[in-house]
C-alpha cells in the first residue's frame, strides 16, 4: 500500500508556482511570524499565506476574536497586523521556509493596496493575495464596498500594473452573483481566484449574559458551516473563468479536499481545519487524499480537477 501510494503525485502547478501538494495555509491562521510559517510548512503545507498586512499597524478588534460553535467557527480578528514595514522585516529569507509563501495585502483605498504590494515586492513572496471580502472590519473588504465588480476591477488593475508576481483575488461568498466578481478580477489581470473568505457575518449571543460573544459582536463564519457554500462558489467560478481557483472553506479532511478539487479547485486552502485537526492537518489531508486516489485508481491529483462538471 505504501509502495503504491508513493507513486501518487499530489504536486500542482499554480500560476507557475510549484506546490508539492495542493494544501495551502489560509490567510489569518498562524501566519503572524516567519517561524510559524516554517512550522506549518514543516507540517506538510504545499504553500503558506501570511496574515493580511495593511499599510499601518492595526491592533484589530477586542477579544473574543475567535470562537467556535456546533457547525464551525466565527472570527472577527479585525486585521490586526504590524503594518507593511514591520512585515517586511518579519518575513525574510522566505526560500528557507520550505514551501512557497503568499503575501496577503489589504488596504482602505486603491493606493494603499499598491503601496503595500510594492512594500513587500522584494521579500521573496511567490504571489500576492488580495482579499476584498472581509465581512467584519470597518474600512476594509465588504464593509467598505471593495466586494463589487467595479471596485475589484479598479484595485486589482492598479496592483497588477505595479508587480509581476501572480495575484490571487480572494472573494466573498456573500454576494448574489459571485461569478461577476471573479470575472472582474480576471479581466483586471488576476492570476487566480481564492474562493472563499468567511461568510456572514454571523452572531452568537451568550444567553446568560445576553450579549454577543465576539468583541466586534459579529464575525465571519468558517469551517463545516461554510463548506457547501464554498464548494458551490468554486463550482460556479470554475465554469465562468479561465484562471485557476483556490478553493477555501471548511476543508479539514482528504475527502473534503477532493470534493473541492472535483468542483474545480486547483489548490485548496485550510484555515479552521488547523483547529479541528491540529497543526498537522496538512499532512493528514495529504495522506487521506493519496489514500483515496490510490483506492480509486488515480495517480495524479490534477486528473480530478473539475471532474464534477463532466
Amino acid at each position: 500500500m505504501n509502495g503504491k501510494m508513493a507513486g501518487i503525485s499530489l504536486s500542482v502547478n499554480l500560476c507557475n508556482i510549484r506546490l508539492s501538494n495542493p494544501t495551502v495555509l489560509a490567510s489569518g491562521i498562524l501566519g503572524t511570524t516567519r517561524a510559524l510559517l516554517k512550522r506549518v510548512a514543516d507540517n506538510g503545507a504545499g504553500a503558506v499565506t501570511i496574515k493580511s498586512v495593511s499599510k499601518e499597524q492595526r491592533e484589530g478588534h477586542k477579544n473574543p476574536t475567535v470562537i467556535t460553535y456546533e457547525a464551525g467557527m466565527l472570527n472577527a480578528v479585525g486585521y490586526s497586523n504590524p503594518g507593511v514595514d514591520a512585515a517586511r522585516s518579519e518575513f525574510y529569507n522566505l526560500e528557507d521556509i520550505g514551501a512557497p509563501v503568499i503575501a496577503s495585502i489589504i488596504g482602505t483605498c486603491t493606493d494603499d493596496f499598491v503601496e503595500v504590494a510594492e512594500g513587500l515586492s522584494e521579500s521573496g513572496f511567490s504571489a500576492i493575495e488580495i482579499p476584498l471580502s472581509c465581512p467584519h472590519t470597518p474600512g476594509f473588504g465588504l464593509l467598505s464596498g471593495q466586494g463589487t465588480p467595479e471596485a475589484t476591477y479598479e484595485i486589482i488593475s492598479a496592483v497588477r500594473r505595479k508587480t509581476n508576481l501572480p495575484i490571487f483575488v480572494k472573494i466573498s461568498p456573500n454576494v448574489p452573483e459571485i461569478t461577476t466578481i471573479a470575472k472582474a478580477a480576471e479581466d483586471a489581470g488576476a492570476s487566480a481566484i481564492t474562493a472563499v473568505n468567511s461568510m456572514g457575518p454571523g452572531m452568537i449571543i451568550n444567553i446568560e449574559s445576553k450579549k454577543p460573544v465576539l468583541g466586534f459582536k459579529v464575525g465571519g463564519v468558517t469551517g463545516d458551516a461554510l463548506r457547501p457554500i464554498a464548494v458551490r462558489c468554486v463550482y460556479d467560478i470554475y465554469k465562468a473563468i479561465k484562471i485557476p481557483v483556490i478553493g477555501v472553506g471548511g476543508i479539514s479532511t482528504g475527502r473534503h479536499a477532493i470534493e473541492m478539487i472535483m468542483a474545480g479547485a486547483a489548490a485548496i486552502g485550510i484555515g479552521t481545519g488547523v483547529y479541528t485537526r491540529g497543526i498537522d492537518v496538512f499532512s493528514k489531508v495529504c495522506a487521506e487524499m493519496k489514500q483515496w486516489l490510490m483506492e480509486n485508481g488515480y495517480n495524479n491529483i490534477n486528473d480530478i480537477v473539475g471532474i464534477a462538471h463532466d
Partner: protein
Amino acid sequence: MIEQPQMVKICNIKDETPNVKTFFFEFTGHYDPGQFIMVWIPLNDEKPFTLSYINGNIAGITVLRRGDFTKTLHAKKIGDQIGIRGPYGKGYGLSEKSVTTCIVGGGIGMASIACLADRQENATFIQGARTVTELLFRHRFKEMKLCTDDGSLGYKGTTVDLLRELIGKHNYQKIYACGPEKMLHKIFELCSEHHIDCEVSVERYIKCGFGICGQCDCSGQRICIDGPVFNKEDLRNMPDFGKTAITKSGSRVSL
C-alpha cells in the same frame, strides 16, 4: 469542544495585596497546574489567567491590576458574573516525590505556580517580589523562601540570586518557574549550566487561546496550545525566548 465562554458567578473575592485580588467561582473541569483560562467581561474584552486556587469545585484567579481589563475585573463584586472558557494549554509536568525540586515564582507569576506548589510535595518554594507588600500567599505557603528587591522582607535580591546560592547547596533535579521573562531566561541559563531540568511558563499576547490565530507565537511555538509551559529542550529551540515578543498587532518588540 466548543470554544465559548460559560458564565460563572463570583462567589468570593480576596484582597491579596493592594493591587492583587483573587476571584473565586465554581469550576468543575479537569485542570493541570500551569494551564490557563480565558476570562470574559461582556462588551469589554477577554484575557488569559491561570487558576491560582483549586479547592473542590471552587477555583480562583489571582489578578494584578494593570490596564483596562484588570481594572474592570477588580471592580467586580461578589455575585457578578464573568465568562470563562478553557482550560487551555499544556501545564507543568509533576515530578516524582523522589526528585528534588524547586519552584520559583516572581511577581504575579506566583498565580501560575501556586496550584503546582499545592500538588508538588517536598519542593523548595521561592517567591520574589519588588517589596514586602507585593508578596503573595504568605499564609497559604508557610515554608516559602521570600526575596524582595528592596530587602523589605527575606532575602534581599532577586529569586535568581537566591536560586544560584541554593543550587550550590542542594542537588535540585528539577526547577519550575513563572515570572517575568528576564527572570525565566536567567533561570533557564542557570539550569542549562548546571544540567538541571526545568519547566517555565512563558507569557505572550493571547487571543484565541486554542492555536489558530498565531498571536501568541514564540519562535514557532504557540504559547496557548504548545505551551505556556516549556522545558529546557523546548526553550533551547526558541531563540525569541527572553529576547523578543509580538504584541497585540503582531509588531515585534524587544523584551
